[in-house]
């Protein structure tokens, strides 16, 4: 129920609707719950509503931290998707 996905805003439409693109699929969501959305922004979408903006700078910081940890300590294995020979 609380699952939500980050999406990129592709186009602003009337009455607090925007068109979004996720994995090549375009659909419409409402941005009534957040202010000042612009094309190219990332938002987190839940059940047809953007519930918050995705802070891209913060996301990049977290990803950089994971990259750093992986570079220093990671084995060249994919722990989340073990692949059988």
């Amino acid at each position, binding site marked *: *129920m*609380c699952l939500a996905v980050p999406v990129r805003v592709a186009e602003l439409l009337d009455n607090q609707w925007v068109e979004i693109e996720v994995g090549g699929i375009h659909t419409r*969501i409402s941005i009534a*719950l957040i202010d000042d959305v612009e094309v190219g922004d990332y938002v987190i979408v839940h059940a047809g509503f953007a519930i918050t903006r995705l802070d891209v700078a913060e996301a990049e910081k977290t990803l950089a931290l994971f990259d750093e940890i992986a570079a220093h300590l990671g*084995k060249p294995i994919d*722990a989340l*998707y073990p692949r059988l020979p």
Partner: protein
Amino acid sequence: MRYIRGFREGAAAAALARLLGAEVDPNREYYLMEFCGGHTHAIFRYGVEGLLPGNVRLVHGPGCPVCVLAVPRLDAAIELARQPNVTLVSYGDMLRVPGSRRRSLLKARALGADVRMAYSALEALKIAADHPQREVVFFAIGFETTTPATAYLILEARRLGLSNFSVYCNHVVTPAAIQSILDSPELRELGQVRVDGFIGPSHVSAVIGSKPYEYFADEYQRPVVIAGFEPLDVMQAVRMLVQQLNAGRACVENQFTRGVVREGNLKAQHLVAEVLELRPSFEWRGLGALPYSGLRIKSAYAQFDAERRFAMQFHAVPENAACQCPAIIRGIKKPTDCTIFGTACTPRNPIGSCMVSAEGACAAYYKYRRGVEPVAV
């Protein structure tokens, strides 16, 4: 997309697992409750549990809205749907949940009731506008992630002058549920549940912020780390909790900085405050009646309140004796402790609500752990 896949990188997961293995104190155990069913599924889907040290135990919490909906409230919705002039609209999960006598909204639909599934709450408004001769009721459930949409829906219905639309409000609030777990006799006196810290919900917190958890961290001395729903987020949050527990700290920390700020989404909070108010008491499945834990529609919007409009009645019913959902919701039992798990109760033919929802602990066990022997630790 980078902002999804980036948080599922296996090499980083392996590295985090090694770090965590070095950081845990081998002389103690860590019992961490993931409040949210979304976390439960991420943990099983990606095998996160198997990457954690053996003395880090995850306890599954009650954060699955259809799982905690009291059966009398579902029965009342089924009764409402059976009225010939009513069109009942709800989220997909809700339709399959069994009420008493194994009835469900889906079965009511098979018997002729007009029950519809919506992805967005706004679809209910469109149905109401397109069918002015029907009484369209939106069956609203969910934690704070979903609540602002319901509030907006009611404001839009008023703006559009829809007189055939109402909302059956079953929204619940997260902090009250956490409080009930911390105050429960199983945890405080009987020692059946141990929770040393909480993995806090990400999208609920995007709306309410991290501030509401500060009370629990402080008053109950339990650390809370708000975590995203991807596997690396969960592992990082576990690490942050272990670090706090090792240092004897109990603070609210935020791992999901890309979506949560301390104050939350103020616009969404204001919409909710305009339309909805706390009920003095609300019945939860598994947790009982909890004070100030559910929301109802304010009297200024009474015309949109299905409970008043249809004078809805609630009748107490006994739980299915074999179903262990109430204990599973409280974290006392695991799905595999239930005698009907995977036999009489399956996702295709669920007896308890925990087997229905994509967030229920039983559904997660069934999908990802069936046939897997418990790991000896």
